[in-house]
Structure formats: structure tokens, C-alpha cells
């Protein structure tokens, strides 16, 4: 017996790392630092998601990468039972999150059992690790 076998092995993250595109790199880089940011137009001030190179409202190319509140509600959710999603030890709760800034994103709800899930559940952002040392924003229930 070696000393190292006394400590339980630290399990490596198995979640698939984000697929990073040039226009969304700022989002994922911030997530790695546990910061939740979004794209806001530098001219008309409106938010867009997913990120894109041009503002669809005023066609400005001035992108501002701004902190988001991280608060939102569950707009839709599901539990993928079959097939079990790759990289998850238990079926996750997948959800469409309606963010306070008026945009939506797909993420997970953690820290709640599927049987306790309800539509419009208030949630706030937290982060979970992925393969290759990245992190992704996920959401946990918050007090109203």
C-alpha cells in the first residue's frame, strides 16, 4: 500500500468542453474565470444571444462584453433519460434559462431533484468544470 491510495482519487470532469467559435470566445473565456458575461451593443445598448458579430437591431459592429446579473428563471426544462447524455453520471436537468437581461440560453439546473422542478423557477448562475480544464455556466435555485 502506498500513501496515495489512502486518499480517494479526485474524479476528473467528464462534461464535454464547449465548442468555441470566434464570436463566442469571450463568453467561454469569461466562464473559465467564473465570470458570466453577455454581448451588448455599443451603440443601441441591446443584448443579443447567441453572440454574433453584428447588432441585428442597428447593425453596429461595436460589441460590448458586459457582466450579466446571472439571475433568471427556468423557461423550459427536460431530463434526458435515454440515451444518457455523454459525460454525465446521472441524467442532468437541461433548461432554457430566461435571463434578466431579456435573453435566453440553454444550460443546466443543478442542486434540485427533477421531481421538484417547476416552470419559472428562479435561478442564479454558478459554474461547473468540463474536460480540458474549462468551465460552463449552470444555474441553481435562488430565493425569489
Amino acid at each position, binding site marked *: 500500500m502506498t500513501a496515495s491510495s489512502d486518499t480517494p482519487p479526485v474524479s476528473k470532469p467528464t462534461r464535454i468542453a464547449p*465548442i468555441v467559435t470566434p464570436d463566442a470566445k469571450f463568453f467561454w473565456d469569461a466562464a473559465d474565470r467564473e465570470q458570466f458575461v453577455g454581448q451588448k451593443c455599443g451603440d443601441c445598448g441591446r443584448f443579443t444571444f*447567441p453572440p454574433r458579430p453584428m447588432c441585428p437591431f442597428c447593425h453596429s459592429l461595436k460589441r460590448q462584453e458586459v457582466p450579466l446579473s446571472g439571475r433568471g428563471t427556468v423557461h423550459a*426544462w427536460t431530463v434526458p433519460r435515454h440515451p444518457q447524455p455523454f459525460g454525465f453520471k446521472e441524467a442532468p436537468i437541461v433548461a432554457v434559462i430566461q435571463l434578466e437581461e431579456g435573453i435566453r440560453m440553454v444550460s443546466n439546473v443543478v442542486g434540485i431533484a427533477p421531481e421538484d422542478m417547476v416552470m419559472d423557477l428562479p435561478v442564479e448562475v454558478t459554474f461547473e468544470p468540463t474536460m480540458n480544464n474549462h468551465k460552463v455556466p449552470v444555474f441553481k435555485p435562488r430565493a425569489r
Partner: protein
Amino acid sequence: MPRTFKEAAIAGIGATEFSKASGRSELQLAAECALAACQDAGVDPHEIDGMITFTIDNSDEIGLARCLGVKDLAYTTRIPGGGAAAAATIAQAMAVVNAGLCKYVLIWRAMNERSQYRFGQNPTNLSGYTGGHGTGSLLWCIPFGAMTPASWAALQAARYMHTYGITNRDLGYVSVQQRKYAATNPKAWFYQRPITLEDHQNSKWIQEPWLRLLDCCQESDGGVALLVTSLERARDLKQPPVRIVGACQSIPYNVEVISNYYHDDLTVMPEAIGTARRLYAQTGLGPADIQAAMLYDAFTPHVLMQLEAFGFCGKGEAAEFVKRGGIAIDGRLPVNTHGGLIGEAYIHGMNSMAEGVRQVRGQSVNQVKNVTHVLVSSGMAGAILGKA
């Protein structure tokens, strides 16, 4: 060829058998169904001069043209959006014939989508999500475990079902009716295998608490082809001509084919509403003029949401419409009379386009009486087919 406006018609349909293991290449399936469509029409495949398929079809136009001995191709194009392309291929072929660019446009879709790869399983190749297929936002689903069409569809359906109090049991009526149609269709994978509502309710959860196994379409191997030509030419061919009365696409702002969570109201399919509006404006027809419909049924909620989008019932009323027999053979609007993608096969919607043609010709195994107009819809595109 002088470029004068020409009415377009579907002159031929062809298909391979629908299976779970075709035992031959996708290109061979494509060649076989293309040849069958030409033979159905009575057209020499050498005369094809336009070819249209889906961006994600794995066979090359050139490879297929070489099989068929196509003499001189005048036009090719591909449609993005996965199965949403199905009716869009008809809109494209119509436009090309209308414009006088082609005489015979071949539409095909052929795949070994069960034996060679599986849409219903976790992805093994993520490169398809990075662009060119109209599904770029799937990137934003994958790291969160939404990796299958059922998971993406469940997130769409959830808000709709929640808002209108539609239960999974309610969805079962769609499956039961479509399997009833498939049970009398010898070409259907589920020929002679109808299901009960209890079978539906006993099938395993795929997406809890929204979709069970029997809410999902099949995974299939096979190929389907259509041959589109001018109405004038079609009148001289073997089959009764099926006029393309109208056909269009609609992709409203912030709508995407399946990772469709960014538009304002997730209780509707804006793309189907847009298709309906454009199609009815183009043809001067409305829901009351349509006697049967083939609606893209990758998952049962899509059928309900399209029934509402095309105005066959009000918002949130489609489940009750179906429950009361609205889509049965003697109902107000028989739907997916071949069994659909659920009951017949999943050839990415193209087998449903072919059933629309059969209904107009009067050749369906589940023939609707007194058909003058049939709607075929793949959500982001639709066509109204009619007698010539």
C-alpha cells in the same frame, strides 16, 4: 430554352424499401429511388437537368448524376435545416421550373440513418454543428447534455405543453393514430403493428416528463425521390400530374430549425406560422380548402403545433382536435396517412412529401375521399399540392 413562366408539377415519386439495415451504400439508395421516380413518371433519367437535396445528404450530385447518366446538369442546390428542408426542396424545384431553368428536376434524400449512423444517439462528430446546415446554435446545447433531437425537441415542446396543460398522454393520441395508418401500409416499417394508448404510456421516457419512446419518429435506412417538371409536360407523362399550387419557406427572425429557443414565444412555431401565411397568400387558399395534410412528425408535439400554425385549430386546441379523431381517416383533416415518420419511416420528411403526392393522385393505401388539395409541411417550409 426560352425563360417564360411555367407552372410546376410533381410527375414522379420513387422510393427504396424502408429498413433498419439497407445493406448497401447511401449513393446506391439515392440512385435506386431516383431511378424509381423517373420510371414512375416515364422519364429517361438521362434527361434530368436539375438536382436538389439536403445540405446533410452524404451523396454528391456528381456521383449520383454519374449513376443515372445525366447528360447535362443545368442546376443544383442544397437546402439547410435538416428535415426542415423536405418541403423546401419542392419550393426550390417549383421556382426553378417556373423560371424555365430546368425541364426535369430530381429531388432526393437517401440515408443509412440507422445502420451507418444514428440521429437519435449521442453525437460522435461535432463538426456538423459549426455551420452550413442551419443548426449552428446546437453548439450551445451540447455541453449541457442536450445532445439528441429528442432533447432539443423536448425543450421546445415543454413551454407549449406547460402553457396549455397538455400531458404526455395527450400526445399519445397522435402516435396511436399514425401507427393505425402505418398498420395498413405495406411499405411502413410498422405495417400490421398498431399500438394502444396504454402501449404509448408504457413506453420508456426519452425526455422526462415530456416525450416517451413512442412520441419519437423512427431511425431508418432508405431513400425517396421526386421528379418535378412543368405542368404542361407532366400532362403527357405516365401519372396523373400533381400540381404544385404553391410552395415556400419561412425562417422568421431568431428562429432556428431545432435549437429554437431564442424567438419571443416558445408556445408557437413561428416558422410554421410564417409558412402558412406565405403559402395561403401565394395560393389564395386557406385551411378550409385542404382535405389532408402531411406534417413533419419527428416528435408528436410538432404535429400539434403545426395544426395550430396552419389554422386547422386555435392555439392550444390541437390536442383536443386529435383526441376527438380530427386527424383520423374520417376526421376533419387526415394527417400523415402513410403513418408518418413515426409509423412508416424516417427518410427526413421526404416520404411524407411522397404521400402527399399519392393522396392527390388517389393512390394512397389510406386514401382520403374527395381530395383536391393536400398540405405538405416540414415546419420551415410547406407546399400545397393539387389536382391538375
